[in-house]
């Protein structure tokens, strides 16, 4: 087990390094001058003086290995430099905005898991029946509808027609807890809907698969009742892949709440990223991408470790 944790942790650190290097290469080894690329707008050539100034600021005149070390050092110390747009330290902005994004994700994950696992399990037990067909259709529809569509429709419905929830915005929890939660409800609910669909399908599939296993038959042969079989043998085992997927999906969401934050005007990390991309603010983009990637890699690591705890077979698998 210790060996497994050690190997997986080292792999995660290695992956972070690979990602950091990859981003560096993407921005520096693409044909053409990054400064010029960043300043040019479509076919309009950039002003040479501005390009030269930017080159200086980006440290592009340094030797390439120097730039690489600076880049690495920035990631390790968490210092991503200052924004091109307003000169504010990128790290500070990230520190303020990251928790807001995580708040949406965690709230959505809790809602989705609480509503998805029981529904998926029930659908699996009734597989092939009407309830199952309905749940399947609902999940497919939820999966197929982009979040910005759901978000827009939800605003149309609750904020503009029914007028029971604010259309969007952000108030810190410390300032007005009730308004904060009201504002959180729609974005979190919108993200939760997509996640719910994934969880329902996943838990339905996992439960169906476990139900076919021989050890469930053994549990019946022992004379166990429905409840204990479901709890101890079916759901417990089926949860392992479901939690894995939930964890991985949460990782994907860290960069994927862009649209929700945009639609609901939630000042999180992803909205910041879009603005940075739009403005081609190099330090901001690098800073955010690095932060998200690191979280993503370590979240995957956490998922693996939790898996190993839940399933005694995993730590034995030679990798």
């Amino acid at each position, binding site marked *: 087990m210790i060996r497994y944790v050690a190997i997986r942790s080292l792999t995660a650190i290695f992956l972070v390094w690979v990602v950091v290097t990859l981003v560096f290469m993407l921005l520096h080894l693409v044909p053409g001058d990054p400064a010029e690329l960043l300043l040019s707008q479509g076919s309009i050539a950039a002003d040479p003086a501005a390009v030269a100034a930017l080159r200086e600021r980006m440290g592009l005149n340094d030797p390439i290995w120097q730039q690489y070390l600076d880049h690495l050092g920035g990631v390790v110390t968490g210092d991503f430099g200052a924004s091109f747009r307003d000169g504010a330290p990128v790290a500070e902005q990230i520190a303020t905005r990251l928790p807001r994004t995580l708040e949406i994700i965690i709230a959505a994950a809790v809602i989705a898991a609480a509503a998805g696992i029981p529904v998926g399990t029930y659908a699996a037990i009734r597989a092939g029946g009407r309830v199952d067909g309905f749940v399947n259709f609902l999940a497919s529809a939820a999966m197929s509808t982009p979040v910005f569509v759901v978000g*827009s429709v939800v605003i149309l419905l609750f904020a503009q027609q029914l007028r029971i929830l604010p259309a969007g915005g952000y108030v810190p929890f410390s300032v007005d807890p009730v308004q904060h939660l009201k504002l959180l409800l729609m974005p979190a609910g919108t993200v939760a809907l997509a996640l719910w669909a994934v969880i329902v399908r996943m838990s339905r599939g996992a439960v169906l698969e476990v139900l076919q296993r021989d050890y469930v038959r053994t549990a019946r042969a*022992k004379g166990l009742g429905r409840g204990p079989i479901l709890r101890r043998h079916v759901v*417990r*085992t089926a949860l392992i892949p479901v939690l894995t997927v939930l964890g991985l999906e949460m990782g994907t969401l860290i960069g994927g709440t862009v649209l929700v934050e945009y639609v609901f005007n939630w000042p999180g990390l992803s909205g910041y990223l879009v603005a940075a991309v739009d403005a081609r603010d190099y330090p901001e983009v690098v800073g955010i991408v690095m932060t998200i990637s690191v979280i993503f890699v370590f979240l995957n690591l956490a998922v693996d470790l939790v898996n190993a705890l839940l399933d005694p077979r995993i730590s034995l698998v030679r990798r």
Partner: protein
Amino acid sequence: MTRAQRKLILPATLAALVVAVIVLAPVLPLPDVRSMDVPNRFAGPSATHWLGQDEFGRDVLARLIWGGRASLFIAVGSALAAAVIGTVLGLLGGYFRGLVEFVTVRAAEVILCLPPLLLALLVVTILGAGTWPLILALTILYTPIYARVVYSATLQVRSLDYVTAQKAMGAYPLRILATTVLPNVMPPLLVQISLVVASAMLIESGLSFLGLGVVPPTPSWGLMIQAARGSMEVAPMLLLWPSLALAGTILTFNFLCDRLQTALDPRGITAGGALWLRGGGSRGAVPRSARRAAAPKQDTLLEVEGMSIAAQNAGTSLELVRRVSVTVRRGETVALVGESGSGKSITGLALTGLLPDALSITGGDVRFVARDGEEIDLGALDEAGFRRIRSGEISMVFQDAAASLNPVLRIGEQVAEALRAHGGARGRDVDARVVELLRQVGLPDPERRARAYPHELSGGQRQRAMIAVAVANNPRLLIADEPTTALDPTIQAQILELFRSLKKATPDMGLIFITHDLAVVAEIADRVTVMYAGEVVEDGPADEVFAHPHHPYTAALLASVPEGGTDRLVAIPGTVPLPDAMPEGCRFAPRCSHARDVCRTGSPPTSHPTPERRTRCVRWKEIA
């Protein structure tokens, strides 16, 4: 065409329809997507503008159809490009492994370390917005996913013997990849393509919505939704149409993908679920209708008479077991012997109510005498009723102990569960009893083994643990379904010995031993019931049956075991008939060297050469 394939027609037609409308946009009689008509902005549906006009008075329907072109082109283009690249990487990596795997699959997987939308944004940052950067971004994004899918499918296929056979043949690796591996990894690949098209449309529309994808004035669904948000209060329908078009198209592809998956997956669960888990039924008492007081014969434990089992599916019924009769007396070991397809295993499962959902007992009488002397009609029991008698009255040992033990529960817990289910022991008593049971089945160091997980035990030890679970509540009847088949000879001998010692310790317990191995029968059974193609063909005391078989099938089976040292084995020609193509008359007749015309007409009646023996051969006297 199978059912799963028929179910593909609807989604495939839908997808084709959507694609056709979008592809045919230039030839459809649609108004120009760019011609504005500002005075009529936000106009509702009319004869010329079926879905109304947008904020610049442009035709909504035309823009919807043309908007799909961009989405579909980007989604399908990147899905196919990524499929080609990913498949090549996955095939090479999976087939050659080692260094090749590292530079293909593992390298591509690094991309998966970035959240997908983030990666797309990064590419757009560098290359700017537009159709081609989007295709590139999505291709990069999906290549590792394909690579991974094809890689794992390739790994699976390459370890199969038919690939090894090609290698042994001296075929070139590329030839093997093209003719053998690629066709066999196609099913998961096809599923993946339809999945990726749907997913790519999601991402494309999202980026376009943010203004980072398709560049105006090219119409696109994402852009239309974005624009409609501004005028949501005035014209909510403008938001609805592109939303419906987008979600509907993605749903169509997801739908197609689901159906493809069921059609291509051979293990596909068509009518899955678990009937036994659904509510209803009695509260666990054995229904009165199933009880009867007097036992027919003093020491009879189980009497099965004329039991039939059939698979029911959509009105059709396929008989798998026909009019089987088996009797087990107290303390007796009865071997149920037959080849695959003989129905011996489902007969065993039927006695514990563990038949798969699609199968059910369709006739006959199954009577079991319980501990309290009452007779229970097993055919009339529901799940709750069976639950009461399982483990304590009738218990079962399965063939594959590795699969039959829960991999995430400790051995001790799995034994304790059986004890607790019947309320016998509580608290610390349970632990002591678990260790005692494990010791009884011959597990070395039972205290430690109780804390082990199944995968930490060897095959023989797992089977011992399985037996401990089965005998935990001192069943009156133990059914063992091929309990030694997967084991090596020396371990098989140990397990057979364990059964013998269990019988010695509990002389009243009846044992049904299901096996295909005649030699094992000779080692362990008092009586033998020979099954062929779903019927009992012969029955009687084991030594008598082996010495003087009264059915040509039994005789042929005995002769095909190479113990005599004859120069040539006696082979039974042909194969076991399938349940949907059972021959008329005696089911063994087509393979029988003694068959006459009379054998091919009516089903042979049961004859009793001696009171203790039965045979279903009309010519048993002549061939004896």
